[in-house]
C-alpha cells in the first residue's frame, strides 16, 4: 500500500494518509508513549506496535482493525540468566525492529536477541542459536549501551533463509530457520577498531541493511564507516567509495523493483551527526552505486540539523513514494522517487521509524 504509512515516534504512533493534496496525519495512537517499532498489517491484517515505557518496560500491542483499536499481547522475554553469563544483562531493553513474512513475525531487540512469533504475537521464542553463538561475546553497543538487532530481512522466496544485522555485531545469516547462523561480513571494515580488529565480523557496525524484494540477493548497507553493497546474498560486500557530501549516515532504502536504485541520507561524520552545511540532502543511486544524484528540492537548505535515524527512511512498494522522518520531529514526503519533497510536519515528536502499509 502506497497511500497509508505509519510513523513510530517518541510520543505516539501516527497514522499517515495520502490524498490528492499530499500526506497528512490521520490518527494518533499511544499518545505520549514511546513507540520504538511498528509492523504494518501482515497477511492476516494483524499489526503490531512495540512500546518502550519509560518506567514499566517494553510492551507489545496488536491491532486487527488497522490501528483503530489495540490490545496488549505477549512481550518477548529473555530466559533466566545463568550466574556465570558475561556481557549485558538478559533483560529486554527495547524492540528495535519488527518484520514479517506471511504471519510469522520477528522482533529484533536490544540487548541482541532475535525473537519469533508464529501466533501473531501471542507468544515469542528467542532464537537460541543466535543468542548462544560464541561471537556474541564480542558484540557491543552501537547507538545504545547494549547491542541490538535493527535489520531483519527474510528471503522473500526461500522460507527459512534470513539475514539480520546488529549494531555492533555484524551481519548474520541463517538458511535453516534460525537453527544455525553464520557471519556475513566479508569485505566490511571497521575504522573505529584497532587495525588487527578492523575486519572482525563481530565488531562491524552495519547501521542498516535492506534487501531488494524483487532481487533478494541484492542488499544495501549503510555502515558506520561507509556504504556497502552485496549482489550475492551477503556472501561478499563491496564498498561504494564515492558518495557526494559524505558516506556517513544511518538510513538506507532500496527500490522494491530495481536493485540498482537506493537512497541514503548523509550526515557530516560520526563525530558530527548533522546534515552537511546545515542543508538536508538525500543521495540516490540508480546504477548500483557507480554514481549518485544529490536531491535537495523541498528539503531545508539552511540551519537544518535534522538527523534521519536507521528506520527513518522508507520507500513504498511503488518505488515512487518516499517518507523520511527525523529525530527532531520533521517528516517529509516525496512522490517521485526523491526528486522533490514536501513537508508533512515539522512538529512531530522524534521519529523512530516510518513504514508504508
Amino acid at each position, binding site marked *: 500500500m502506497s497511500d497509508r504509512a505509519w510513523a513510530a515516534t517518541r510520543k505516539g504512533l501516527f497514522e499517515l494518509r495520502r490524498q490528492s493534496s499530499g500526506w497528512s496525519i490521520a490518527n494518533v495512537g499511544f499518545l505520549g508513549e514511546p513507540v520504538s517499532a511498528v509492523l504494518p498489517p501482515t497477511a492476516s491484517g494483524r499489526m503490531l506496535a512495540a512500546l518502550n*515505557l*519509560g*518506567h*514499566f*518496560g517494553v*510492551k507489545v500491542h496488536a491491532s486487527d482493525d488497522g490501528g483503530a483499536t489495540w490490545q*496488549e499481547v505477549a*512481550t518477548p*522475554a*529473555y*530466559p*533466566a*540468566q545463568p550466574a556465570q553469563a558475561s556481557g549485558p*544483562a*538478559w*533483560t*529486554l531493553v527495547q524492540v528495535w525492529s519488527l518484520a514479517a513474512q506471511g504471519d510469522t513475525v520477528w522482533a529484533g531487540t536490544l540487548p541482541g536477541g532475535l525473537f519469533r512469533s508464529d501466533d501473531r504475537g501471542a507468544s515469542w521464542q528467542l532464537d537460541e542459536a543466535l543468542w548462544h553463538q560464541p561471537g556474541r561475546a564480542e558484540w557491543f553497543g552501537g547507538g545504545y549501551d547494549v547491542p541490538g538487532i535493527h535489520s531483519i530481512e527474510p528471503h522473500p522466496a526461500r522460507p527459512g533463509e534470513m539475514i539480520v544485522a546488529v549494531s555492533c555485531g555484524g551481519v548474520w545469516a541463517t538458511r535453516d530457520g534460525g537453527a544455525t547462523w553464520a557471519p556475513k561480513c566479508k569485505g566490511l571494515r571497521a575504522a573505529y577498531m584497532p587495525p588487527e580488529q578492523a575486519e572482525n565480523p563481530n565488531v562491524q557496525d552495519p547501521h542498516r541493511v535492506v534487501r531488494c524484494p524483487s532481487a533478494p540477493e541484492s542488499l544495501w548497507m549503510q555502515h558506520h564507516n561507509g556504504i556497502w553493497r552485496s549482489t550475492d546474498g551477503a556472501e561478499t560486500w563491496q564498498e561504494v567509495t564515492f558518495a557526494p557530501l559524505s558516506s556517513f549516515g544511518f538510513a538506507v532504502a532500496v527500490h522494491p523493483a530495481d536493485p540498482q536504485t537506493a537512497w541514503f541520507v548523509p550526515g557530516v561524520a560520526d563525530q558530527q551527526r548533522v546534515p552537511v552545511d546545515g542543508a538536508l540532502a538525500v543521495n540516490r543511486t540508480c546504477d548500483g552505486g557507480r554514481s549518485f544524484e544529490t536531491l535537495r528540492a523541498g528539503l531545508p537548505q539552511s540551519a537544518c540539523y535534522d538527523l534521519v535515524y536507521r528506520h527513518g527512511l522508507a520507500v513504498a512498494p511503488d518505488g515512487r513514494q518516499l517518507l523520511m522522518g527525523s529525530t527532531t520531529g520533521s517528516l517529509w514526503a516525496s512522490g517521485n522517487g526523491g526528486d522533490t519533497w514536501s513537508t508533512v510536519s515539522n512538529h512531530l515528536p522524534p521519529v523512530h521509524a516510518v513504514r508504508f502499509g
Partner: protein
Amino acid sequence: MARIEFTPQLRRFTETPVVETGAATLREALEAAFAQNPRLRGYVLDDQAHLRANVVVFIDGRRSTDRVALADPLGPGSRVHVMQALSGG
C-alpha cells in the same frame, strides 16, 4: 494483613488491584497481586524477576533496598506502595 497498592499511573495500562495479604516479604506480596492480575508482573519486574530500574517500592514509607531478591520483610500492618521513579522527559 499487609496492604499493597500500585501507582495510579499504571491504570492506563492494566488493572491495579489493592491487595491485602499475609505475605512476610515484598516478593510474596507482589506475587499475591500478580495472582490477581498476571499482566501486572511485567510492568513491575524485568525478565530476571528483578524490580524494574525505574520502579521504586516503599514499605511503611521507606524505600526498599533489595531490588533483586525482593526479600524486604513485611509486618502484619505494613503498607506497600509500588511507584514509578521519576525520570525521563
